């Protein structure tokens, strides 16, 4: 039995991942924005076989409250073996271009709130000397594109922060996993037209659980995004800046 903290537990990918932890009989603590949905998800995970499910509503942007919140999760679970940070929003790029306040709000949610929690969690896991910190970043963080560079740069900041944290926590024996999903069919992307590159949350969840088990550092999900992003990253900027992406 693992003790797992899920942050942003009402997100489709986190929920699908939680179902896999539940099926394995793990003990779970869920943090999410919507209290009603959290309690439904908690009951569901209990039925699916979780040893025990705790949950609490939280506001990711209340940075000052993070230490107490994480301490409470730690005390309730009796330790944390795995933390999955999955919360996030998909910014309206055009609106952010017109209004910095929106960009700031998006950065707070998608980058700084994650970094705030990672600061506390990093210290805890370092002292503990074991465990897994898994964070959902995005393929969008690999290269800036005009269609969503606010989201991309926030996720890019998270990816770089994790890279440094991994380097720092390696001697302590802590796994730091950066998860980079491609297109995933979730409520967050309900408005998009879906094509063959789209994956369902459960496929991504399966990949996350496997990456944790195999002590991976960075994982693209589904795997073929590794190749797509290799190509996208390798296009020279002179050409890339002309692309309509």
């Amino acid at each position, binding site marked *: 039995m693992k003790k797992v903290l899920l942050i942003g537990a009402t997100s489709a990918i986190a929920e699908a991942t939680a179902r896999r932890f539940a*099926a394995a009989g793990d003990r779970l603590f869920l943090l999410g924005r919507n209290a009603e949905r959290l309690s*439904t998800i908690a009951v*569901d995970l209990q039925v699916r076989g979780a040893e025990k499910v705790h949950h609490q509503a939280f506001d990711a942007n209340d940075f000052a409250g993070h230490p107490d919140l994480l301490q409470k999760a730690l005390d309730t679970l009796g330790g944390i073996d795995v933390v999955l940070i999955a919360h996030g929003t998909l910014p309206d790029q055009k609106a952010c271009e017109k209004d910095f306040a929106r960009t700031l709000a998006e950065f707070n949610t998608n980058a700084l709130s994650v970094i705030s929690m990672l600061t506390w969690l990093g210290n805890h896991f370092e002292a503990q000397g074991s465990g897994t910190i898994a964070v959902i970043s995005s393929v969008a963080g690999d290269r800036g594109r005009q269609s969503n560079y606010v989201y991309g740069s926030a996720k890019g900041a998270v990816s770089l922060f994790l890279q440094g944290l991994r380097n720092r926590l390696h001697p302590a024996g802590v796994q730091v996993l950066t998860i980079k999903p491609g297109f995933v069919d979730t*409520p967050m992307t309900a408005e998009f037209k879906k094509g063959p590159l789209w994956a369902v949350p459960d496929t991504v969840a399966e990949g996350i659980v496997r990456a944790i088990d195999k002590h991976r550092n960075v994982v693209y999900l589904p795997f073929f995004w590794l190749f797509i992003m290799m190509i996208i990253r390798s296009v020279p900027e002179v050409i890339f800046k002309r692309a309509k992406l």
Partner: protein
Amino acid sequence: MDISGWGRYPVIEAKVDLPQTPGSLVVSGKDSLVARGLGRSYGDSSLAAHVLDTRYLDHFLAFDEETGTVTCEAGVSLAEVLRVFVPRGWFLPVTPGTKFVTVGGAIASDVHGKNHHVDGCFSDHVHSFRLMLADGKTVTCSRDENAELFHATAGGMGLTGVILEATFGLKRINSAYIDEIVLKAANLDEVFGLFAEHQSATYSVAWIDCLSTGDSLGRSLLMVGEHADDGRLELSRKQGLPMPVDLPGPTLNRYTISAFNTLYYNRVQRRRTERTVHYEPFFYPLDGIHNWNRMYGKAGFTQYQFVIPPESGLEGMRDIIRRIAASGKGSFLAVLKAFGDANANHLSFPMRGYTLALDFRIEDGLFPLLDKLDAVVHDLGGRVYLSKDVRMSEATFKRGYARWKEFHDLRVRYGADRVFNSLQSARLGL
């Protein structure tokens, strides 16, 4: 958004709502709305201008380890029920030929399985469900509470309201495996005899070659099964295969299908073969190929499933198969089964007798053939399954489903006729 049923015909543009909680669900102010689960009904029963996609209403709400009673939201798929409960020694009381249907869909279509002759329909194991009515109010329906709504909604094709959650009983198993016997029948007489001989078997179904004629008309493989008792409760580890492209329309024609059928029939050498197989290939042979519906090409396909009463069974079935064989249309894996008694639901399909289901690629000349088959089926006192239907006439429907008026009146009484309407309900005059 473009949507279609499993048969991929017709394709329509619809507005799709994806509620994340039952509380965020709005039915008022719409006049052509229908709930949709995994879209596995073949025809147009889940098609409407407004579609309520229940994919995110997929939570378990309670489970009683003692009795095997489960309560879940309507969007939970039967695949999830199996994934969660088979390892704990529980199985679906009734399952259709695909596990990729939701609990809500299973109730609305009043699905049956290979054990209909002993265990009835899925709804016969449903204790109660919660239904959102046209006025937005939610009521509990069971055989004791709002019983009329219960019997209209089970089999009611989503036309009475939106099923939000359901409570139903699972059945105890001591193995994820099935002890199967495969029996070869040279023609229709033989397979009818075998059905009679094995009527006490829990599961029975026959694959039948609808293209062979003469002495071998109706040659079949009857598969009967019982849950094994070996204590192995593991899920299948096999991953499904994708069907990434549409096969060109003419790939499946009378020659290729006839060749396939001959190979399939002759693959089984002995008259009687016993084996133990996992429940996945036994119940869901086609679930292993995702999007197998692309096999029939871009034009799409339909499945024709009818039932005829026992007294007209053998001769009636022979007549119908002869007509199908003569048409040169029809599919591999046509399925024949003996049904038990009908239940009390208004529009439930199964009734005592014999049912045959087969796929047809959508092409010129198909619908006239099916119209002719409709006439034969109804002259014999039978009817056609709504969950597969995409083209039946209003008159045919009303002849086959004697309680349609009672159902229609209930819809009017609850105001459902002003909100819950699908392409199918409009076509059938409901």
